[in-house]
């Protein structure tokens, strides 16, 4: 299926501690035409990979061992201000929803269907870099 939008130029980093989730997201996003340029297993590595690759978008799991995604956001914003962050999590309580809203970070619940995530990546990644930060 050919996506109805131009996605080829959008570069994405995936940060999730679950190997199967990383494999699946890489496969799904590549099938949608995105360029998956890196993966990370925790928040600290996510920041490092983003500094190195400067992707357009990072898909960031919030609950990870070590430095979790939530804790990585300030460093990500400081070191990679042009990288758009999408919080991608299995569950989100009221606190997480409020915090993501306050930081103007889009929050998506994990799903087997990647369409919503792909649309959000296009929405954020296709825009000018100066518009991507919170």
């Amino acid at each position, binding site marked *: *299926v050919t996506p109805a939008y131009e996605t080829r130029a959008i570069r994405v980093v995936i940060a999730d*501690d*679950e*190997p*199967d*989730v990383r*494999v*699946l997201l890489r*496969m*799904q996003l590549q*099938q949608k035409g995105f360029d998956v340029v890196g993966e990370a297993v925790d928040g600290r590595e996510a920041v490092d990979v983003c500094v190195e690759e400067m992707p357009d978008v990072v898909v960031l799991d919030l*609950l*990870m*061992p*070590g430095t*979790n995604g939530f804790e990585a956001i300030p460093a990500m914003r400081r070191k990679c201000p042009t990288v758009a962050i999408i919080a991608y999590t*299995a*569950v989100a*309580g009221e606190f997480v929803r409020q915090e993501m809203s306050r930081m103007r970070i889009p929050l998506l*619940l*994990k*799903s*087997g*269907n*990647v369409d919503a995530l792909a649309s959000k990546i296009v929405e954020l990644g296709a825009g000018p870099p100066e518009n991507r930060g919170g």
Partner: protein
Amino acid sequence: MRTDGEPLEREQAAMSLADVDAIRRRVLNVVGHSLRTPVTTIAGMAGALVDAPDDETRAALVEGIARNAQRLENLLDGLLLAAGVTTALPVDEAVATSVRPILEESWRVVGGEGDLVVDGPDAAPLVRASTLRQIAEFVLDNAVKYGDGPTTVTVERTPDQVLIRVASTGHVLPTDDELEHAFELLYRGEHAVTAGPGMGLGLFVARQLARIEGGEVTLTRAGEGVVVTVALQA
């Protein structure tokens, strides 16, 4: 709020109900999280099968689906056992069961990175294979979830026991208090809470299963990490 003359029992009962409500919410939250990741992974991988470009990719997806279905089954069994439901307990007989292949397969099921290194000779304790698999998966999952370095497993045979030691280094060492409570149902130490999703179920269930087999599971601090020891009858 208690007023003068109101029985203390009522206040205690009200506090208990609040506690129960808090626990209920926490359980539903962690169950939801623990179920959602494997369920969405299975759904996504099944969908991706349709467009898989080659046999290798298809095989990887099928393997991923089977692995995550196994995680769901373990979670279900653990929840039933935690609820005191014994109908899901295995009905097969305990026989001499080689530990090494089960440890290696369990490592793959819990998503361990690379190959698991098992030191020491293989040993075959008297245990149901299905139960040993569950114990191994809960203990190794614990190591993967809370460790941030390599996990090493050693197998030792004593005259009357087989000891499986799973050593992992964690980013925050558990306190004495946390070691003491680690086997309580739904208990999660501070290091576990900051490590991300989890239920406080794994070590509880692993110990219950080991005890059903006449064995035991213990937790000790060692150097920069912890060691979970599974003792089974030789």
